């Protein structure tokens, strides 16, 4: 395996970007990278060599990211910002008979480099506008690829609560992207 002294140099930026994308914060991403290297130092002998060092480190980082999101989620849930009973904000999308009020555009999948970079900016922007706990749960689902069961376990919420929050996150992102792409 690589020399631990060179991990930071060889993989630090990669791991930082990976974490930053999922945690929406430079500071938290730096913490996650540091925690990853510290855990890796302790577990060096368990590195099997079946994967590359980067893959191994990324595997450790993934767990650190879930830990950080879990702690953050719990800290701010005192007044539950992911309250499933608060449906007002998406009820307005439908008329009385349950039909969409608005007609959606056909988005298409951007092919050019320029379009793709604009899309990336729009996604970042909309993620930033999402309520923090919706962004956290959506990050666990879509960016870390956790299953609904894993999310419920990590955040200690019910299945229904998780579905409702994911639903609201998706509706919000759709709405936000509609005018930006």
């Amino acid at each position, binding site marked *: 395996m690589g020399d631990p002294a060179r991990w930071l140099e060889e993989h630090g930026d990669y791991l930082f970007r990976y974490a930053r994308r999922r945690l929406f914060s430079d500071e938290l991403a730096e913490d996650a990278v540091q925690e990853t290297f510290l855990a890796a130092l302790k577990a060096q002998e368990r590195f099997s060599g079946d994967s590359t060092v980067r893959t191994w480190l990324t595997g450790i980082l993934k767990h650190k990211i879930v830990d950080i999101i879990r702690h953050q989620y719990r800290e701010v849930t005192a007044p539950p910002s992911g309250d499933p009973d608060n449906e007002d904000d998406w009820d307005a999308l439908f008329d009385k*008979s349950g039909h969409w009020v608005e007609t*959606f555009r056909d988005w298409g999948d951007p092919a050019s480099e320029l379009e793709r970079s604009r899309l990336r900016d729009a*996604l970042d922007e909309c993620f930033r506008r999402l309520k923090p706990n919706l962004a956290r749960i959506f990050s666990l689902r879509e960016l870390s690829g956790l299953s609904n069961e894993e999310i419920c376990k990590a955040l200690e919420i019910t299945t229904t609560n998780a579905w409702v929050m994911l639903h609201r996150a998706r509706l919000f992102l*759709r709405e936000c992207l509609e005018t930006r792409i």
Partner: protein
Amino acid sequence: MGLIKNCKETSVLVTQSLDRGLTFQERIAMKLHLMICRNCARFMKQMHLIRSWLRIENEAGQHGLTDEARERIASKLREEE
């Protein structure tokens, strides 16, 4: 549970289809509605596009660790070694 769904109910089935397996009946109800509703069909396409866009790891142009953070982590690792 009836097979006739409005847009609001269908939108829930569409997003849940991304997060869990729908039951047979739910799947039929969703498909029936999508056949007659262009807006919901677009909604579903948009939901899938968002998912596929988020899976693209495109870190070009994203900044890496700052020198300060790098130094802080390096000294922490020296302590531990």
